Structure formats: C-alpha cells, structure tokens
C-alpha cells in the first residue's frame, strides 16, 4: 500500500507513539532498578499525556479544528496531566 503524501505525518506520529510506548517500559525498568520509582512513574505519566496530545492533534485532527475545540482539548490534556502527576507525587 503506497502512502499518500498526507499520510506521512500520520505514520511518523504513529512511529513516535510506538517508540514512546517502549520508552515508558524502559523508564519503568531502568528507573525502578535505580530506586527512584516515584520519579519513574511521574515521567511515565508525562510520556502518556504527550502520547495523548499526539493522538488528539494528529489522529483526531484537533490541530486542524477551530480554535475553541483546540483550546478545550489541549487544556484538558495539560490540565489532567498536571492533576494526575500532582496527585501521584502528593502520595
């Protein structure tokens, strides 16, 4: 299946998602072994929300959406990421 030019960013973002997923596991394994599980988990949560941002922007096409929807979705991703990391670290 030949890629259409418009599909190249989609495939690039998908590759980044796969690499970020593998990175999350490495973060978990590596940092957990060195002992700082809290830092590792906070980093894993941030990586997860970077992935959510990429899915929203490129797959859900929010980057081409009207400004209002973009602000809502970007605000949600940043706000929920900050909330969850804060709640986690407050433990």
């Amino acid at each position, binding site marked *: *299946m030949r890629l*259409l030019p*418009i*599909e190249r960013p*989609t*495939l690039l973002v*998908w590759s980044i*998602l*796969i690499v970020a*997923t593998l990175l*999350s*596991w490495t973060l*978990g394994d590596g940092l*957990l072994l060195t002992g700082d*599980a809290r830092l*590792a*988990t906070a980093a*894993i*949560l941030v*990586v*997860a*929300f970077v*992935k*959510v941002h990429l*899915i*929203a922007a*490129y*797959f*859900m*096409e*929010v980057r*081409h*959406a*009207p*400004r209002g*929807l973009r602000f*809502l*979705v970007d605000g*949600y991703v940043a706000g*929920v990421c900050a*909330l*969850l990391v804060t*709640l*986690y670290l*407050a*433990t």
Partner: protein
Amino acid sequence: MATDRTTTRRIPGEAGTWVFILGDLVLFAAMFATFLVYRAEDLPTYIAGHEAMSQASGALMTLALLASSLAAALATTRLRAGAVRPARRLLLAAAGLGALFCVLKGFEYQAKVAAGHGPSASDFWTFYFGLTGLHLAHVILGIAALCAVAHELRDRERPSPRQLAGVESVTTFWHMVDAVWIVLLALLYLAR
C-alpha cells in the same frame, strides 16, 4: 497562507460526536483522579496490585490498539481521496485489531481471577475491573460502529458527505478510546 489556514479549519466528524467525546473524557479524568486519591490512602495494597499486573499483556494490548488507530486514521484519508474499497478494508482491519484487544483482555481477566485477583479482592482490583471494564465497553461500542460504517460503504463508488462524516466521527471516537487506554496503561500497569 494564514487565510488558507482559517478557512480550512473544521471540526473532524459531527459536532455531536465531540460533545460525547469531551463528556467521556471528563468522566474518565474524574475516575483517574479518584483512583489516585484512594491509592494515596492505602499505598501498600495498590503497590501490590501494580506488581501483579502483567507487563507483557499490557504491551500486547497497547500494540493492538495503536495498530488499530493507525488503520482507522488511514481509512479516513483513503476515503477522503475517494478510495472506498481500501478505506473499507482498513476500517474492518481496525475493528479486527480492536477485537484482538478484547480477546487479550479476556485472557487477562481470566488470569487475574484465577490468581485470586477478582473484582472484590482489594480496592486496587475493584478499580482495575471497573476502569478497564468501562474502557472495554467503549472498545466494543467502537468495534460495532467501525463495522457499521464499513458496512454502509459496501458497493459504493464514492462516499456521500454523510457517510464521510460518519466515518470521521467513528474514527475520532476510536482514537479517543486509544488515548484513554494509554493513560490506563500508565496508571495501572506501569506505575509503582
């Protein structure tokens, strides 16, 4: 250039779908926060839960959903380019990979219950079954919707504007299901 950008700005799919998606996202965010609040009150129970999670199973399910999302994204671009048959095949591939996710989830549930980690074993497992169960219901709804829009495209030379909007709505919803899973994976499988 700037004018071009503003004129081409559009809501992907139907506006109503976004009301549903944003409502769903708020609901999931509230449940994620509740999970962490309860977790803080009984950390040892939750750490034991995290440690009993199967990383391999989580990885396989993530790959299935990410591959499914890619198929759904390519289906939309193909359909816009007028390639109905490839788009239809990609929608069905996305549904198939979603079904694979369900099968993997079924095996995982079975393994957890067999190991004594049923929904009432501890608060962690109640959250695990509750959160992943609600997510699984979304996956099943998404698979049905993907099959429905693929079915509507059968024997079509070109999609009608309504069919195109329908496919965009369903694939947008499907990507949201993928995004929610990414956070669940971090909170339940990867966190310590």
